């Protein structure tokens, strides 16, 4: 049920130029004729009915009347009866009716007429100007309503398309998540076998292997470990996508202190890490722990070849963005012309020989910050260090 932009434009274009249909109901031909004369030169399509029955028949087969002009005094079925029947139809009940009636029995008739669903009255003999003006008002109303309806339909179609796209996007995302999950999941078993059996070979047949054989076995083992790290990181990344955030007020000073304790346990380094006072943030603490951990570990890694390696962790307030946290190092930095690759999955700006890593760390950080509705960006210069900035989103 896709509607193209061309079709929508066509529907819009149809609206204004098309003549507007009016139904004239009167049992006397000369009355119909005089109405035709009065309304004739406008952009109206006039359709005549000679009795109430005739009018109903026309209304059943034709649609989109802007207005019905109906005589009250007609034989067999008068204007009021006809109007009541018209009002019973769901499709027709909103078509306005103007009754034409003779002066003599006006007050009583007016009441009956409104009950039957008339929207207006014109007393006979009518003034040409008043007739033209009243009809013009209803036609104008009809045109505006029609425009509004077309616009409404247009809007609804756009909304439907947007909803469809959103649904599709969610579905594709879910598929992608489950795909990457099951792929990385299923990759683990053969990998465990590769590195496991390489180890068994090494342990059980060490005396039978010469140096070259041992070297090759070492390469197998090492690559197995690397792939394992890749898969674990990819799994962590994939899991992140499906996780719901549980935000609370987090003391960033405490969090960073904990991160540093973890890092000291696992990473050997000589960096001098300076930590400024950090304001609290409303975030999920485990994820924010990961953000700080990845950024600080990166800073340590990429400044490891500098003496002294210096890292600064801090925060400043920005009028538009609020608190901006940052991690700054004096390490190898990066070339800003590769900036678009910085936060991509498996994207690296340094070789694994130079600095080890899987290329998922910053992608994870980026995803966490985006999930929070925050922003992350970086500045760097080759050999002069890098600074990573982030915000944690609105409260």
């Amino acid at each position, binding site marked *: 049920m896709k509607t193209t932009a061309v079709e929508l434009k066509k529907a819009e274009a149809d609206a204004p130029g098309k003549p507007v249909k009016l139904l004239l109901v009167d049992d006397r031909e000369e009355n119909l004729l005089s109405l035709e004369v009065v309304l004739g030169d406008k952009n109206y399509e006039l359709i005549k009915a000679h009795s109430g029955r005739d009018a109903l028949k026309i209304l059943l087969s034709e649609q989109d009347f802007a207005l019905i002009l109906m005589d009250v005094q007609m034989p067999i079925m008068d204007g009021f009866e006809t109007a009541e029947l018209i009002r019973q139809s769901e499709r027709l009940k909103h078509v306005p009716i103007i009754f034409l009636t003779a002066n003599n029995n006006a007050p009583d008739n007016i009441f009956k007429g409104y009950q039957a669903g008339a929207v207006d009255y014109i007393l006979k003999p009518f003034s040409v100007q008043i007739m033209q003006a009243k009809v013009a008002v209803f036609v104008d109303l009809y045109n505006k309503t029609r425009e509004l309806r077309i616009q409404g339909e247009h809007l609804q179609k756009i909304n439907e398309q947007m909803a469809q796209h959103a649904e599709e996007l969610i579905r594709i995302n879910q598929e992608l998540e489950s795909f990457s999950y099951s792929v990385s*999941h299923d990759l*683990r*078993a*053969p*990998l*465990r*076998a590769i*590195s*496991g*059996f390489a*180890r*068994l070979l090494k342990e059980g047949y060490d005396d039978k292997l010469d140096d070259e054989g041992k070297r090759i076995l070492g390469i197998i083992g090492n690559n197995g*470990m690397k792939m*394992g790290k890749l*898969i*674990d990181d990819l*799994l962590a990344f994939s899991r992140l996508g499906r996780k719901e955030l549980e935000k609370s007020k987090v003391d960033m000073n405490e969090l960073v202190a904990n991160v540093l304790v973890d890092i000291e346990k696992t990473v050997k380094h000589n960096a001098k890490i300076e930590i400024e006072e950090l304001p609290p943030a409303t975030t999920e603490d485990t994820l924010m722990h990961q953000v700080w951990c990845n950024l600080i570990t990166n800073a340590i890694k990429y400044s490891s070849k500098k003496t002294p390696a210096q890292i600064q962790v801090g925060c400043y307030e920005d009028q538009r963005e609020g608190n901006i946290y940052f991690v700054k190092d004096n390490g190898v930095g990066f070339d800003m012309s590769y900036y678009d690759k910085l936060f991509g999955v498996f994207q690296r700006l340094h070789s694994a020989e130079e600095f080890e890593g899987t290329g998922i760390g910053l992608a994870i950080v980026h995803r966490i910050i985006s999930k929070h509705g925050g922003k992350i960006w970086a500045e760097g210069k080759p050999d002069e260090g890098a600074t990573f900035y982030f915000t944690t989103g609105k409260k």
Partner: protein
Amino acid sequence: MKFFEVEILLVEDNSSDAELTSRALKKKNLTERVYHVKDGAEAISFVFAEGEYAGEREVNLPKLILLDLKMPKVSGLEVLRKVREDERTKMIPVVILTSSKEARDIAQAYKLGANSFIEKPLEFDKYMSAVTEIANYWMVLNLPPW
């Protein structure tokens, strides 16, 4: 070896993983009483002494079931459910040993009455030590129901 004398039932469809697990158990001198079945359906046949496992007893009660989750035909969770539903077998200690760390799987396993849930470590050393620790805990430290 008679089936009822099996102390550890290893339910594992991946033969490499099964071999690694068996090797780790060998170090604890437990292999003599470890029996490996290759999927959930075979595990059920074993425990309930059906088909090729029919024998002197109406059920076989190992001291521990090491259970993988993702297996063809009958999944580990299905095996767990069957074992827990039967009065005769519901007390068998069951340790899930799987590649999955899915929160859904973990929750479901505990709901069905798993005694423990261990993710298979990727690294060889960690894998070996995980298996020996499991064996040590459940076969040496822990007092089994029979």
